[in-house]
């Protein structure tokens, strides 16, 4: 059977124009030359029969697996509910269960999304959404050349679509893809309004900070601070290149600055995001300039949105006290696992089979993708894939659009939300 307008939850763009063919338990894109290699590669269930729940790798009934899970959760003093690579409904139930357990909840990539959250809490942000960029932007700066591969259809759907609502300038927007050369050179290659610019900085972060300086300071500052005896002439060339981009921004009507926090050195990523956000805010004094931070390829946006509206605070959320607490230093999920502060892990991962839980020596319960190889878990409960085996909802990278996920396969696999709800009832 063929389905149209299927939503793909495998990156934060949530493209919903896919045509998918379902035969039995096999799911594949109708168009084999489709540009996205991520979509539905992992959806087909190859075995003839559905996977069964496991306790320490041995098949059991769903009831036995749930009973074991409850026993482990009841025995836990500080359970961690994580993964959260799931749809809205599962995240809703996961928050409710964590509250019942007086535990801590965090996304698998919680520490990465926190960088943007912290900057938002400190200075706020100026941002935009996908359709706005598609139709309005006439100048786009992308920090990090790897971003296009991580968001495979960003180019054809957002950066260079066939039509836009805007002018000729929007239809032929100037795109600058900025990165560091890593070989001591400064290079620029322009093709069809897109310039790939590699500058001579040690790190992408250094480039960002230099960009912030160029945006913030007058040209005279750089003349004063670049003495003639400075042997590093390339340094000048790089700054000039950034000034040239600034000139383009100031002449443009709607500049969008794109990044993905996962591309930055995580030790300093918060500072880097703040530098970019401050640059946008300074540019806003004169021209329209907005940010488009990209992420959410593991359902981070969905999980964070749900937790925020249900508890009033973003992830991680601790229910160890009377009320929900957001303290990313004390309750970072992965750190709690590493330091063995959590004594039981409930892992929810529904979109990909390779999103297995991190290995730690504590009891682990997995509500996982049906193809997940998870024999080491104390309890493994296979669940349906949202958008294939059951209906659902997912939040897009821009934090605004929520897309419906449709049911396109009759598998009888339970939804993660149903099992989480059963655990709540059993508690």
């Amino acid at each position, binding site marked *: 059977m063929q389905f*149209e*307008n299927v*939503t793909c939850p495998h990156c934060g*763009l949530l493209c*919903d124009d896919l045509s998918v063919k379902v035969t039995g338990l096999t799911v594949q894109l109708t168009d084999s030359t489709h540009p996205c290699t991520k979509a539905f590669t992992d959806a087909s269930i190859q075995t003839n029969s559905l996977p069964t729940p496991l306790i320490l790798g041995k098949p059991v009934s769903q009831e036995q697996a749930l009973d074991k899970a409850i026993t482990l959760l009841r025995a836990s003093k500080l359970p961690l509910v994580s993964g959260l690579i799931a749809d*809205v*409904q599962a995240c*809703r139930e996961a928050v*409710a269960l964590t*509250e019942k357990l007086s535990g801590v909840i965090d996304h698998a990539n919680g520490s990465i999304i926190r960088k943007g*959250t912290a900057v*938002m*809490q*400190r*200075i*706020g*942000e*100026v*941002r*935009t*959404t*996908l*359709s*706005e960029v*598609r*139709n*309005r932007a006439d100048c786009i700066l992308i920090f990090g050349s790897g971003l296009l591969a991580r968001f495979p259809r960003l180019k054809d759907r*957002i950066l260079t679509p*066939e*039509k*836009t*609502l805007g002018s000729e300038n929007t239809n032929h927007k100037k795109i600058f893809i900025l990165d560091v050369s890593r070989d001591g050179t400064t290079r620029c290659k322009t093709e069809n309004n897109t310039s790939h610019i590699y500058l001579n900085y040690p790190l992408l972060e250094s480039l960002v900070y230099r960009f912030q300086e160029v945006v913030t300071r007058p040209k005279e500052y750089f003349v004063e601070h670049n003495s003639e005896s400075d042997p590093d002439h390339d340094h000048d060339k790089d700054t000039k290149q950034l000034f040239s981009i600034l000139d383009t921004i100031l002449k443009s*009507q*709607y500049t969008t600055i794109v990044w993905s926090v996962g591309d930055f050195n995580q030790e300093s990523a918060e500072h880097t995001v703040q530098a970019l956000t401050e640059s946008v805010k300074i540019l806003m004094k004169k*021209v*329209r300039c*907005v940010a488009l931070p990209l992420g959410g390829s593991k359902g981070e946006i969905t999980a964070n949105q*749900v937790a*925020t*509206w*249900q*508890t*009033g*605070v*973003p992830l991680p959320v601790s*229910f160890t006290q*009377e*009320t*929900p*607490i*957001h303290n990313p230093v004390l309750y970072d999920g992965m750190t709690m696992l590493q330091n063995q502060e959590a004594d039981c892990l409930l892992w929810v991962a529904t979109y990909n089979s390779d999103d297995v839980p991190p290995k730690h020596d504590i009891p682990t319960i997995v509500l996982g993708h049906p193809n997940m190889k998870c024999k080491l878990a104390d309890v493994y409960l296979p669940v349906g894939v949202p958008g294939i085996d059951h*209906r659902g*909802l997912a*939040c897009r990278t821009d*934090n*605004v*659009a*929520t*897309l*419906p996920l449709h049911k396109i396969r009759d598998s009888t696999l339970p939804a993660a939300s149903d099992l989480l709800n059963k655990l709540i009832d059993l508690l």
Partner: protein
Amino acid sequence: MEIKLTGGEVYDPVHQVNGDKKDLYIVDGKLQKNLTDNKRLDNTFDLSDCIVMAGAIDLHTHIGGGKVNIARTMMLEDAHSHPHPGSDILRSGNGRAVPSTYSSGYRYAEMGYTACFEPAVLPVNARQAHMELADTPMIDKGGYALLGNDDFLLNMIREGTTQNVINDYVAWLLDATQCIGIKVVNAGGIHAFKYNQRRLDIDETGPTGSKPREIIATLSKAVHELGIAHPLHVHASNLGVPGNFASTLATMAAADGLPIHLTHIQFHSYGTEGDYKFSSAACQIAEAINKNKNVSADVGQVMFGQTITTSGDTMMQYFGHDHASPKKWTIMDIECEAGCGVIPFKYRDKSFVNALQWAIGLEIFLQVNDPWRVFLTTDHPNGAPFTSYPHLIKLLMDRSFRNDVFNIIHKDAQKASNLPSMDREYSLYEIAIMTRAAPAKILGLSNHGHLGEGASANITAYRKQNDIEQMFAKPAYVFKNGTLIVKDGEIVETVQGVTHVTKPEYDHSIEKSLKKYFDDYQTISFNNFKISNDEMIECIGNQIETHPSGNNH
């Protein structure tokens, strides 16, 4: 299930009941004239020391959707300084200015509110808004879909599309977003801001060639011709700008005699007189409301203290971002439809401007003669958190209390306001109109806001006491559809309200041009944009109650 409420002092303006002692009868969640003979009386409540009204209705409160979640994320200070522990029946939560969804539902119910309306549902964000409202228990909900800055409508107006086709678009959008009303925020201004235009007055031309006046006229006509009960809900141009009362009066005129609702009108009632070049124009605005029977307004009263402002009006939020307190602000352009701006703000009684804003709101309340056309709101959380309503009611009902507060605000603001000269004190009957009967009427909720036969048994009983604020803060009993949900200000049972929607009929051929628009320009497909009834129930989690509109009776 049958319940008898005896001896209460009842205020039911729809039936001209003004403090009469009356018994009320609830049969299966509805009010009836009497108990049925063949059913058992389950419970009797003695309300002889109580004032009884229908459940209160807030027709403008920002409690769900993307911008509220941005505010929650930004204002950790608000969350952690206002924790709400859970219990066996309650989920825990946080926040006062931007509470978590569960906390919002609980706090509203504890004050005797049984329905609340989110006034800024961005069409592309409607799913999230409804999900948040679904996770807001205790109360009924509804939303107004935002139009008037969307490229599709602005292009239709530019191209001279007929009103009938525009009406089809408006009706389609209401259906697609599962809303009950249409709102316009700074008509054309949010769109113009995307082109770096920093201000747009009502008769200025925006980037697409249309003027705000034209947009308001077109949309108010569409709402009227489609028979949507709630008039076009308008956040006027020039929010917060000294001298903006002129464009507010022009906005009223733009409706050309058709019904129009001006929201948080306090923020749009400013003159430029005096040393501070900021003055009250409440008198001119109230006079215009009194004169033009097609106009209604909610006030958006300011209260002193910390809050966070959340608005679709990116243009004017950016204009005011330097006043952020704490110093952080967020502006967002959204999907060729709209935008949002989120800015924390602390209203101070010793600030001339803030003190005068406070006085201007009260001046409007006291000078608009008809309580059926002025509504009690703080534009939560923009003027103040909704939990300040009991305090606001006391300010309206108790002149001596009002003047005591007036005497401690900024001295120059005192000189700039004639508030002390206003003798009016709102009566309980008038409070029942502006918080129950009138909102239900203007939203087209025929079974709400009154205590007549057949009405949903949403009832609030306040124990009589001298302190009005205390009385309205902690009702003795609140019933939702006949279920006792609050006793002595505390929740005793949790319930899930419905979402009120309206679905005017329309010519579905509009979908052809919409599909092309989505295919060519949007990043969500046409088929996935629309929220179906079964998606509302099965995935989002809201039961819907559809109210008739003029063209589908």
